[in-house]
């Protein structure tokens, strides 16, 4: 399992359990995200706390999950990005596609 999930208020927090989010886990991540959306979760917080590196394969899986979420009237936000990863999101304008929160708790609070 790439994601460790827990419910906080009306949000589902999906914490990434690897330090390097790359090609080797991107397919599994996408499958797990699809399953969470299929279960009817409408607000998923992908928590990057502890992740030090994200490659383009993983970002592709994340963005693809977002497209699936939007088609299912659900929302995916991200939280806990370290400085480098946050910088990358900004550089390639993923900050326009995802709401970014400093922490998963804040992401859940702001939704409420």
């Amino acid at each position, binding site marked *: *399992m*790439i994601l460790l999930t827990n419910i906080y208020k009306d949000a589902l927090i999906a914490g990434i*359990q*690897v*330090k*390097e989010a*790359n*090609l*080797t*886990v*991107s*397919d*599994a991540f996408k*499958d797990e995200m699809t399953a969470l959306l299929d279960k009817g979760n409408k607000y998923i917080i992908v928590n990057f706390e502890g992740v*030090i*590196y*994200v*490659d*383009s*394969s993983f*970002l*592709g899986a994340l*963005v*693809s999950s*977002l*497209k699936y979420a939007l088609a299912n009237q659900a929302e995916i936000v991200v939280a806990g990005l370290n400085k*480098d*990863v946050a*910088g*990358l999101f900004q*550089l*390639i*304008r*993923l900050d*326009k*596609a995802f709401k970014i929160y400093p922490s998963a708790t804040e992401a859940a609070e702001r939704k409420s």
Partner: protein
Amino acid sequence: MAVSKKILLVDDNPLVLEMMGRALSKEGFYCMKANSADEAMAILGMERPDIILSDYHMPDVDGFAFRQNLIAMPVYKDIPFMFLTSEGDNELMLKGINLEAVDYILKDTPLPVVVSKINNFLSTVREQHERTLKELSVAAMALNLHSVPQRLPVIKGFEVDFWHKSFQNYPGGDFIDFIKIDERYTFIVLGDVMGKKWGAWYFSFGFLSYIRAAVRICIAEGNFSTKSILQKINAVVYHDPVVNDVLSSLSLLMVDTQGASITYSGAGDLPLLYYNTVDKSLKQIGSSGMLLGLMPDGDFDEQVLKLRIGDRLFIFTDGIIDFEDTNGKKTDYNTFTEAVKPYLGQSFAAFKKSTFLQGKTVAHIDDCSLIHLQKTDQ
């Protein structure tokens, strides 16, 4: 390519773990040790070994149950698995082998033999892998499929060149193209399909076809706007079920030799790096567009840049700014800026030989592509 030797040892006996760990480390293996199936699962969540060597008799979750759990998880199912156990019962051995284990080794087997078995297996996997890779490459060559150009275009008053390295020598998701319309206009294309290896490589041709078609259609209609070309490509990609689940970045530049100008639009790409020869400054040129196919409206913009003799533009994909230090992998745009600075007074050919780019060849972190454009004479 050297055989990767990352092994996960699973045994509830610390003595066996220590002994096997030592013997394998001496043979150049990187050993991860777990004293239970649960601990092994935790390690697997962090790192992927090339092979797992597991005991059968373990409390709570035994070796067979551990193997069955792995088979049920697509992400771990394909990691080669060997049993190393003192259980010599024929029926159990058969059961173990039937669990898609590549071998079942008894613990009284001499250590050098165990090590040789593992080494031989990994070498065979690597050889098979290289053979397949070669066959696929030959097939791709026969089909004349190239995701990077075979020759450089001649653009009057400009010098263009590129450097490309694919991830672990697989054809990958980065693609480069130069579309020369006439003596006045040439388009420069740099894209990165989000993914690696064959899957991404395959889709890069779909994207390239759309881009080439969109450029030609717009030009035929008298439309020389890179922004509207991107809008057209985005609309098609967004609605095409074949590629709409695959995202790609794109830097699209139109070189106008008459106006000595560049028109640039980007889709989820990294900012270009612009070197101004007059004030000797380096500046990022960013665009607003999102990844191709992400949203129905990609929010694209267009910038026009007048280049003077000596001015340079660097266009690149994220592999160029990925690096690895003692704390792990990182992404930092400034590493490229700093690396290129000492070479601004030299040719691009000199930078291609720099330790920075040569280091990318060795590190194999991601597909890496870099295009260099320089304004030369009038």
